């Protein structure tokens, strides 16, 4: 163990760098949502923007920023001027035009004025949370938009001409059978977005849906979920959307680079309440509360939560367990060059077992999960972690 920690940290220059901004405002809270967000007030937004400026000033970086991602919350809820203000805070620090700049939007608040502001500051990619096209299902999620709003918003986004547009959809919703999900998928495909994210409904603690689940008002059906995953993968592949991660699909050239870089365990700087960072030897997150975050920033503090030092051992382990979620898999040879002292024998053992069971395979030096293995990515991750800890402890 000590050997690995003391190994020189190897962070090549050419490494990509991301900037993530968490905009913590939503018009209302969706029933499935566990993200940190709050109701926007003029004063709240103002203090938030000031906080971002102050926090950005606390972090130093020298290489150009590859990708920017504004998530939330609903960044698209910011007024056009606030969008410009946030853009202006970041721009001087980007070192040029980022390759990709994503902003998340909600259908109900997509306006031409906002889109214009986004275009103006250099945003290249819009990700819109459609979730479903069926009014009853939208209602069941507590979403505040209508089917018509999705269409109208999508048209506006297309008109504004961003390089890439994503739609988020959710499946395995209570009361949604396979046919209903296919209908939703088909409606989304008819819009021909560049990218699709399809999320199996997850019951996060402390959400309304979680309460329903624990009261037995909705039921978990793992087999049904698995089938919907498979349906999704088949349908999207047929439609020309290549899967590149468990829940992400894109037409050629439209995969989200920001996220890919995250999964490859590159660096990113997170700004805003609850935003996570992985940068300059540390991983951590900001406190999930606007006022506390502001107070910490004022004191010159950040990343007070889940703070861990990024040792090579940790990075290689995470590159593996999060990397296998990607269809491209993990380039074992490259990883091995980066972290030669990791317990590769144990990993090889484990991958042999996975391969034998038809859950994974190694092609061109890359460890890739089969579709069956991908459905078990968490279990695979646990086993890989186990392989690591066993070897290190002996």
């Amino acid at each position, binding site marked *: 163990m000590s050997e690995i920690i003391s190994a020189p940290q190897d962070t090549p220059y050419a490494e990509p760098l991301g900037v993530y901004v968490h905009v913590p405002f939503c018009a209302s809270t969706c029933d499935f949502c566990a993200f940190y967000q709050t109701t926007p007030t003029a004063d709240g937004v103002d203090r938030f923007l000031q906080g971002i400026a102050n926090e950005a000033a606390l972090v130093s970086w020298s290489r150009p920023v590859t990708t920017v991602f504004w998530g939330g919350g609903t960044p698209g809820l910011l007024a056009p001027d606030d969008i410009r203000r946030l853009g202006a805070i970041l721009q001087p620090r980007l070192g040029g035009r980022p390759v990709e700049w994503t902003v998340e939007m909600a259908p109900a608040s997509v306006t031409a004025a906002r889109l214009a502001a986004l275009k103006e500051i250099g945003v290249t990619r819009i990700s819109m949370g459609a979730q479903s096209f069926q009014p009853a299902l939208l209602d069941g999620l507590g979403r505040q938009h209508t089917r018509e709003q999705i269409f109208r918003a999508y048209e506006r986004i297309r008109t504004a001409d961003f390089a890439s547009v994503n739609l988020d959809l959710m499946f395995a919703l209570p009361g949604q059978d396979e046919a209903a999900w296919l209908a939703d998928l088909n409606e989304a495909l008819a819009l021909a977005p560049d990218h699709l994210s399809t999320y199996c409904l*997850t019951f996060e603690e402390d959400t309304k849906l979680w309460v329903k689940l624990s009261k037995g008002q909705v039921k978990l059906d793992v087999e049904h*979920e*698995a089938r919907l995953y498979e349906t999704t993968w088949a349908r999207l592949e047929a439609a020309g959307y290549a899967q590149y991660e*468990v829940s992400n699909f894109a037409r050629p050239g439209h995969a989200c680079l920001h996220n890919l870089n995250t999964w490859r365990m590159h660096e990113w700087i997170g700004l805003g309440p609850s935003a*996570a960072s992985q940068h300059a030897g540390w991983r951590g997150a900001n406190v999930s509360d606007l006022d506390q975050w502001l107070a910490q920033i004022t004191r010159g503090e950040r990343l007070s939560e889940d703070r861990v030092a990024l040792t090579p051992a940790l990075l290689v382990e995470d590159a593996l367990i999060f990397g296998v979620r990607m269809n491209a898999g993990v380039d074992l040879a490259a990883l091995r060059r980066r972290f030669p002292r990791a317990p590769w024998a144990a990993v090889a053992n484990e991958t042999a077992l996975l391969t034998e069971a038809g859950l994974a395979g190694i092609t061109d030096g890359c460890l890739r999960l089969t579709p069956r293995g*991908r*459905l078990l990515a968490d279990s695979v991750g*646990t*086993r890989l972690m186990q392989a690591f800890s066993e070897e290190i402890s002996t």
Partner: protein
Amino acid sequence: MDVLHTRNFCIIAHVDHGKTTLSDRLLEYTNTVAQRVLTAQHLDAMDLEKERGITIKSHPVTMLYTAKDMQVYRLNLMDTPGHVDFSYEVSRSLAACEGALLLIDAAQGVEAQTVANAHLAFGQNLKVIPVINKIDLPSANLELCAKQLEDILTISAEEAILASGKSGIGIQDILEAVVQRVPPPRWADYPQTRALVFDSLYDSYRGVIAYIRVFSGVIKAGDMMMLMSNGQKSEVKEVGVFMPKMTKISLLEPGAVGYIVTNVKDTADIKTGDTITIASKPAQDPLPGYKEVRPMVFCGLYPLESNDYEKLKAALGRLRLNDAAFLYSSESSIALGFGFRCGFLGLLHMEIIQERIRREHDVEIISTYPSVVYHVKPHGKPEIDVDNPVNLPDPGTIEYISEPTIKASIHIPNDSMGDILALVMEKRGSVEHTDTLDANRVMLSCVLPLNEILVDFNDRLKSITHGYGSMDYELGAYSVSDLVKMDIMINGDPVDAFSSIVHREKAEGKGRVLCEKLAEIIPPQMFKVAIQAAIGGKVIARDNVKEMRKDVTAKCYGGDISRKRKLLDKQKEGKKKMKMIGKVNIPPDTFIQILKN
């Protein structure tokens, strides 16, 4: 008080026929216990006994009764454990008496235990006084009871006393009958002191207290006594009688029932059935009927929480102090961890000990499938006893295996005859003969392997007969049988706690059930996991653990990494606590869940 004014007797009855109630009435009538002190059911001391309405430990009591002849008699009432598991104890209690009241519930008539107990009493040459009890019940059927007495028990119905413990009818008649019909204590003229040990108790201050019936001679404090089975000597520190509390007196005379306090530290050293004599003038012959009791049923007991091991050990130790028939030794199992192999007289004894561990010692335990003691004969070597399938020698070296059988008498309503015959067949039993009890009931005399009644025989008997059936049994001979060891394997690795010795023809069925249960309870696995039942490497049943279908987080972005790691870490730690069998991580309570039902 002289021998001529002493009577020693007991009450024998089927469970619930009113023995306890009647005993209390007798104590009350003779003013042995003031009425207000009489908690219901005075003689059954342990809670558990009260709950189950059975007596496990005998509690004798001495009553003074002024009979119609105006003479005062000393009547010693021996309480007898009513269950077959304790039949040796019953036989020793009976051996301490000259007479027995045979209770029959007027509404129920003769039942399995009535017959079994009556035969035990005849076997001891006791004067049996039939008492038809609960005659206050509207459903009392005196004619039928009289007929059954004559037909089934060959006792003249004219001898029967009609009584009701509840309403206090016939109490004096009973006491008079004891005085008149039960002979005075036998063998009082034997030249040396002889006393029968019929029970013992461990007292943390005074050590072992033996309950004895003096046949001849006297025993007093200061005597150096000797146990005739092994010649062990000990000083008598105190003698006394039960009034019903232990009451110290100066000496115990012939015919007396009482207790002695000795220097002996372990109940196992003063065994029920042994004869006590005086070391300086020892008797030549012991009293008849002494026998070493050996546990018949074994099982592993394991603490549910592994850190309760020491607590369980202490509990077993304490229970053992009072119960020489209960044995234990430590063992360990891959599936269940560290625990104990325990031996019991029978199923009820096993249940009672387990229950007492839980209740009185507050340790949660799990038990493995019970096993009987097999006699295994290896080629060219003498027979060995095997009480744990794990210890069965390699099948190739075995000449034969024999198993204990029982002689059961099963009382059932006529209309369940077909189903009960099928049950007996299923349990590899045979019906020797059938007797008609009355217009509605028959008695089947069967021989069954003890092993087959260990698990659910009684429950099924009760359910087939809607609760009307009853069974009693005594141990029969060992008989050679086609027995094999069946292993249960997970991915080829045997799970020791599930190995069992079964009849070859039963193996497949039992194996299939176990495989199915395990396959169902083991959580879905990433890899193919085979559960197999095998005899000597030959697979006879198999099943597969369900394959895991989906275990993947939908959203996993930068902000989720720390959280996700924690989750995976937790799963990883969880797996460390699991047992690894056949490369499969099995949650710790899997085996427990299966053993539970």
